């Protein structure tokens, strides 16, 4: 069973639909005991950093994720807001986040070289795989994935970055460290390549 963390935001059903399509059983839940009992945990999402952290704290899920999921070595996948809250803090809402990965989350600049930069970036962007990782098994380098974000993560240690993308600035698009994996792009809305990566996560051996 894969737990999809329900933190009162985001389009959680689309992740559940994608997993169902791939033949994996999942449950959308906010119950700590269900999340602790799950084989794998996904924190999906659309939402703002401040509201997401507030909801996670109010539900007591910040500690569950930090100690009982990530700390306990359970495979964890963050998507979109789910990558951002792994860092120490976010410029969005000046939010204090989960502090699992050293680094911060910053906004895209309003302009690059004097030219205005549209934010949020909404659409398909190429993802460059900067080091091999089983999450990308079967996914050609520079494939397109669907992004919706105004903010992006800046890890202190670039060794956690496994992929980058370019929206005026080159930014970290995916990270991995042990049992923790996360993507800024929406795997559940990125067509066959996104499904492939979700499937890779669900089948990965630790």
């Amino acid at each position, binding site marked *: 069973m894969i737990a999809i963390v329900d933190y009162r935001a985001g389009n959680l*059903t689309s992740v559940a*639909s994608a997993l169902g*399509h791939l033949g994996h059983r999942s449950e959308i839940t906010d119950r700590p005991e269900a999340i602790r009992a799950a084989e794998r945990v996904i924190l999906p999402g659309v939402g703002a950093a401040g509201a997401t952290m507030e909801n996670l704290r109010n539900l007591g899920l910040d500690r569950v994720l930090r100690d009982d999921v990530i700390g306990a070595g359970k495979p964890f996948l963050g998507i979109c807001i789910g990558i951002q809250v792994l860092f120490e803090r976010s410029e969005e809402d000046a939010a204090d986040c989960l502090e699992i990965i050293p680094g911060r989350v910053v906004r895209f600049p309003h302009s690059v070289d004097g030219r205005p930069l549209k934010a949020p*970036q*909404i659409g*398909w962007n190429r993802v460059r795989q900067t080091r091999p990782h089983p999450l990308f098994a079967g996914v050609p380098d520079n494939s397109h994935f669907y992004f919706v974000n105004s903010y992006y993560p800046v890890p202190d240690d670039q060794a956690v970055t496994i992929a980058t993308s370019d929206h005026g600035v080159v930014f970290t698009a995916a990270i991995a460290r042990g049992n923790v994996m996360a993507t800024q792009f929406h795997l559940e*809305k990125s067509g*066959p390549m996104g499904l492939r990566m979700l499937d890779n996560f669900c089948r990965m051996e630790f």
Partner: protein
Amino acid sequence: MLAKRIIPCLDVRDGKVTKGVRFLNNVDVGDPVAMARYYYEQGADEIVFYDITASNERRGIMIEVVRAVAREIFIPFSVGGGLRTVEDMRAVLLAGAEKVSIDSGAVRNPRIIAEGARAFGSQCIVLSMQVKRRPVSAEFPSGCEVVIDGGRTPTGRDAFNWAREGESLGAGELCINSIDQDGAKSGYDLEITRMIADGVGIPVIASGGAGEPRHLLEGFTAGGADAAIVASIVHYGEYPIPSLKRYLRAHGVEVRDAPEMERSAN
């Protein structure tokens, strides 16, 4: 760099795709789920459903369509038509749509843009505007007026000013639908599309008028659009999406590769 998006538009009434769709191999052209799957497999970057169901009582049918589509296609899709309240939007988003498209309802009650953005985030809110050419005047400095109800009702609003207002109210994207060009197959209204694309900081979608591949190229280059709505150009099978993408790529436009569909694991 973001790829330019191609977005097929399907008109749905009482749960069935209505007009303007003739050809599609072995696809039940009345069934919105089958058609969405067809375009998904063709490499559409997004899909928009426009619900033209007349009565409120039958609106629930569209929610069932959205649920069924969300189970089968794994790219973003939006739903528009008749959404007047935040609760209308919530029903569509909870059923699995990525975005909602608001049009006449937003002109009548602009606060719905801000309320929707606050409730679901700007990225969920597409402000769609029907625009009609007018002589340039103090009233219509952009040379286009916003009209509603399928072009029947003038609003007295200038298209460019409404676009800017929509952005400041919290719309995440703007869809510029030219009533003059719609169905004419002579290309998008490049002038107003460009003016708005240059004047806002959010993505702009060109709509109305695409009849041949060149029109998409012009929409993305001269028109400055980030995405293009297509209807008859793909619904009749003359220009399948992969051929449109090949054409655009050959002319230097960044588009998403249409990856080979893999079979699902089950």
